[in-house]
């Protein structure tokens, strides 16, 4: 039942470039990118118990890698999308020796500081176009009329892939490792769960997801700049989507992303108000219903709890 529904939704989304106008497609693509970033953040916070305030660094890393490498090498930007994810993962790996000494609040803000350092470094290096950024030089090599559609498909594949990956994780024995670690780290270690390695792996994978999402998002805009790529709102929105939807669940961020886009478009005439509304909702969720929309859904439809 759930599976059939998922297949239908996926097919409908895949057909979107043929069905929607330019603006509609762009909005849908953006929602999928946001979902991908939120799901990556969710992997780290909801499953790994590590709250990051600096995931925009990985979004930017992916975007910049795509733009810089395709400028210098005759690589298709499409092939660079997964490689950009790998690059962001490498950045995460390089950060672990310092960041994994920090816990809780300090990890959260430490990650933010790391993002600031990367941002300042990128905006000072001519290789990355310094503070003015880079255009997508490789756009000459591809048929740009297909760009919105292919960006959409990439975003769909990434978001769906992350949801599927999380689902597979929950089904596999490693899901037990992760859940046990989140419930009681010492007890998990005492059963032989390698908590440090799991956290490291989750961190790197979550960075890879954000890196690919960043590459896809900026592929569509044909231009990358430090201000846009290192915008902390990438992280802020991911947090709101996860918190409102329900941390540590698969469908939570999906519901959250939907609500996020609806709210933003609904309040488009009043700039700033959607962020205020999201902030207020997120705070209310933390105070009154910490399991978010997903938890509310559980209460309304108790028999679906085990499904996703």
């Amino acid at each position, binding site marked *: 039942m759930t599976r059939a529904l998922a297949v239908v939704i996926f097919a409908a989304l895949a057909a979107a470039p043929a069905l929607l106008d330019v603006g509609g497609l762009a909005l849908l693509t953006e929602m999928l990118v946001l979902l991908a970033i939120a799901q990556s953040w969710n992997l780290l916070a909801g499953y790994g118990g590590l709250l990051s305030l600096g995931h925009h660094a990985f979004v930017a890393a992916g975007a910049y890698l795509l733009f810089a490498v395709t400028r210098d090498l005759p690589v298709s930007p499409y092939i660079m999308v997964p490689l950009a994810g790998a690059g962001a993962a490498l950045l995460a790996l390089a950060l672990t020796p310092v960041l994994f000494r920090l816990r809780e609040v300090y990890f959260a803000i430490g990650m933010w500081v790391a993002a600031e350092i990367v941002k300042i470094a990128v905006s000072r290096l001519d290789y990355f176009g310094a503070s003015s950024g880079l255009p997508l030089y490789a756009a000459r090599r591809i048929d740009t009329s297909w760009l919105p559609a292919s960006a959409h498909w990439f975003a769909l594949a990434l978001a769906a892939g992350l949801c599927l990956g999380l689902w597979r994780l929950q089904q596999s*024995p490693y899901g037990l490792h992760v859940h*046990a670690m989140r419930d*009681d780290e010492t*007890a998990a*270690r005492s*059963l*032989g*769960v390698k908590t440090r390695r799991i956290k490291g792996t989750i961190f790197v994978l979550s960075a890879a997801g954000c890196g690919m999402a960043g590459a896809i998002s900026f592929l569509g805009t044909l231009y990358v700049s430090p201000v846009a790529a290192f915008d902390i709102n990438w992280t802020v929105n991911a947090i709101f989507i996860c918190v409102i939807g329900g941390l540590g669940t698969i469908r939570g961020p999906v519901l959250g992303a939907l609500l996020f886009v609806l709210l933003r478009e609904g309040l488009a005439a009043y700039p700033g108000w959607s962020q205020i509304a999201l902030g207020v909702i997120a705070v209310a969720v933390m105070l009154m219903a910490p399991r978010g929309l997903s938890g509310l859904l559980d209460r309304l439809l108790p028999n679906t709890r085990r499904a996703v």
Partner: protein
Amino acid sequence: MLDARNLSKAFGGLRVIEDVSVTVEPGSCLGIMGANGAGKSTFFDLLTDVTRADGGSVRVAGRDVTGFDTAGRVRAGLARAFQVPRAFASLSVSDTLYLAQHASHGIAPKDARARVEEILEITGLGPHRTSPGTALRLLDRKRLELAKALASDPKVILLDEVSGGLTDQETAEMVALVKRLKEAGFAVLWIEHIAHALQEASDRIMMLALGRKLIEDRPEVVAADPQVRALYLGAAA
């Protein structure tokens, strides 16, 4: 099977474990006694690297595991049942045991499910297989602690007051269980307050006082030791 040498630990200036060594053979049980605060649980923490020792070495089945972390030591065959039961809120009892099988081997052995069933049977947790571990009664949570340890397929089992707060009959069951563990060839270390239970099940008893080994000998020798009687039943003994 277990060979720990000169373990020491100090917190700040306070020495909580000082130069304690133990050797436990397969199929035997070392009982550990001592007042609250004598360092019994800390000693287990050092053996399992839940707390890193300041000095000393640990060997399990001839293999030096001193540099290993907790997970590594579990994989080398050292399993522990905690004094205060530590169950997982989001894992059912049988999932918890399956996890123990999976994690301790690095991958689940072929017969993991069958082994989980077997352990559910042995520990009497069968009826609770689908409930989360945190939803169980105290006695069942203590059983789950033991079941978790067994499901790690260990060579050495550390039991930390698994019978604290239990009735006579439950304590007698624990004694019988420890005896079965010995017969099955495990090396058992058992921290227990209930002296007669410990005397019945142990081959040797170690008495800890203020982080130091006061005496280690056969149960009847330890029971007759005036120092032990003085510490255990009171200064006037």
